[in-house]
C-alpha cells in the first residue's frame, strides 16, 4: 500500500491550517468586533470561497498564478517560484477553500464573548493587544478550536481546486483525495479501499475527540 498520499495530505493540511489561522483569527476578530464601512461586503466576500464551486476557485487560481498570468510571471522571474503543479500550490488551494470556515468559526465564537469583559479589562489599564490575548482569545477558545479542526478537515479533503492547480503528481501533489480518484480511475480498488478506510477512521476519531475536547474545556 502506498502511504505517500496520506503524508502529503497531512503536510498540505498542516501548512494550510497554519496560514488559515494566521489570516483567519484576525479576520474573524475584525468581523466580530470591528466597526467600519463595507463590513457587510467584506463578510460576503469572505464567504464566497465557501459557496463557489471548487473548480471555479481552481480556475481563478490558475489564471491568477499560472505561468502566463502577470502574477505568475512575476513570481517566476523575481523569485523563481512556480506555484502551479507544486505542493505549495496545493497549500494555496486548500487555504483559500478552508479560510471561510476558519473565519466564520472565529467570528462566531468571538461574538459570543461578552464585550463587558473586554471593557472591564480596558478600565483595568490594559491595551487592546492584552485585551485580545488575555480575554477575548481564551474565552473564544472552543469555537476557534472547532473552526480550526473543520478548516483542517476541509483542507485534508480538498479535491477540485487542488486537482486544477496542483495536478496529480504522485508523491508531490497527489493528495489523498486525488489518490482515491486516481486509484478508482485506474481500477486499482485495493489502493482505493486502503485510502478510503484509512481516512474514514482518522476522520471519525478526530470528530469524536473534538466532541470530547470541547466538552472538557469549559469553566
Amino acid at each position: 500500500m502506498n502511504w505517500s498520499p496520506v503524508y502529503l495530505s497531512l503536510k498540505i493540511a498542516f501548512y494550510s491550517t497554519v496560514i488559515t489561522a494566521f489570516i483567519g483569527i484576525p479576520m474573524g476578530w475584525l468581523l466580530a468586533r470591528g466597526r467600519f464601512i463595507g463590513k457587510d461586503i467584506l463578510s460576503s466576500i469572505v464567504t464566497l470561497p465557501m459557496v463557489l464551486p471548487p473548480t471555479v476557485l481552481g480556475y481563478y487560481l490558475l489564471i491568477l498564478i499560472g505561468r502566463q498570468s502577470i502574477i505568475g510571471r512575476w513570481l517566476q522571474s523575481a523569485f523563481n517560484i512556480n506555484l502551479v503543479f507544486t505542493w505549495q500550490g496545493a497549500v494555496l488551494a486548500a487555504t483559500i477553500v478552508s479560510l471561510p470556515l476558519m473565519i466564520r468559526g472565529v467570528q462566531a465564537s468571538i461574538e459570543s464573548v461578552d464585550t463587558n469583559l473586554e471593557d472591564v479589562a480596558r478600565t483595568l489599564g490594559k491595551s487592546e493587544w492584552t485585551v485580545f490575548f488575555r480575554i477575548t482569545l481564551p474565552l473564544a477558545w472552543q469555537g476557534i478550536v472547532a473552526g480550526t479542526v473543520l478548516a483542517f478537515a476541509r483542507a485534508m479533503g480538498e479535491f477540485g481546486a487542488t486537482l486544477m492547480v496542483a495536478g496529480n503528481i504522485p508523491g508531490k501533489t497527489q493528495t489523498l483525495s486525488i489518490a482515491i480518484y486516481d486509484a478508482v480511475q485506474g481500477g486499482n480498488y485495493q489502493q482505493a479501499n486502503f485510502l478510503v478506510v484509512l481516512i474514514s477512521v482518522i476522520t471519525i476519531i478526530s470528530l469524536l475527540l473534538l466532541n470530547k475536547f470541547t466538552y472538557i474545556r469549559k469553566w
Partner: protein
Amino acid sequence: MKIQKKLDDFVLDKEWEVRKGEVISLFGPSGSGKSLSLQAIAGLVTPDDGYIEINEQLIFHKERKICVPSRDRGIGYVPQNYGLFPHMKIDENIMFGMVEKDKNIKEEKMMKLLSCVGLENKRNKYPQHLSGGEKQRVAIVRALATNPKVLLLDEPFSAVDIPIRKILRNEIKEFLTRWNMPVVLVTHDPEDVEVLATEVVDYC
C-alpha cells in the same frame, strides 16, 4: 462633568459632580442612560459633546479634542453582573489589573484585599463557584487593586434576591466609608439610594 451622547433613538444630556467621600447615585428607570453615563466616564463609549474631569484633570473634552483612552483614565468600573473573567481564578482576576511588576508584591496586595472582604479562602476558586454577593465583592476589590481615582458601580444588586440585597447593601456601605473614595452608583431601586447615596442625580 457634562455628557452629551446621541444614539439611534436616544439622547443623553446630563451634568453633575462627585467629590471624595461622596456616593453619588444615578437614579432612574431602565433605559434612561445610567449605564451609558458610566461607560462614558470609563472611556468605553465616546460622548458626542461635553467634558469629563477627574481630580482637576480633563479626561474628555469635545472642543479641545481631548479623549484619554480607557486604560489611562484610572477609573474603577464594576459593570452590571460584575464582569469577572470566567477563565481566571479569583486571585488571577484581582492581580490582572495591578501595575506592580513584582510577583510577590502583587500576591501580598491581593491577599490583603481579599482578607478585607473576607474571601481569602476563595482565592483558588473560579468565579462561577461564588455566590452573587461574593462575586460582587471580588469585582469591587479587583477595581480597587488598580488604585483608581473614582469607583463606578452599575446596579450592584440587580442580580441578587431581595433578602440578600439588604445584607449586601449594608456590607458595601461599611466598605465604602472605610475606603473614602468618590463613588458613582447606578441603581433603579429607591432603597439603594436611601441607604447608600449622599447625593442623587435624577435620570427620570
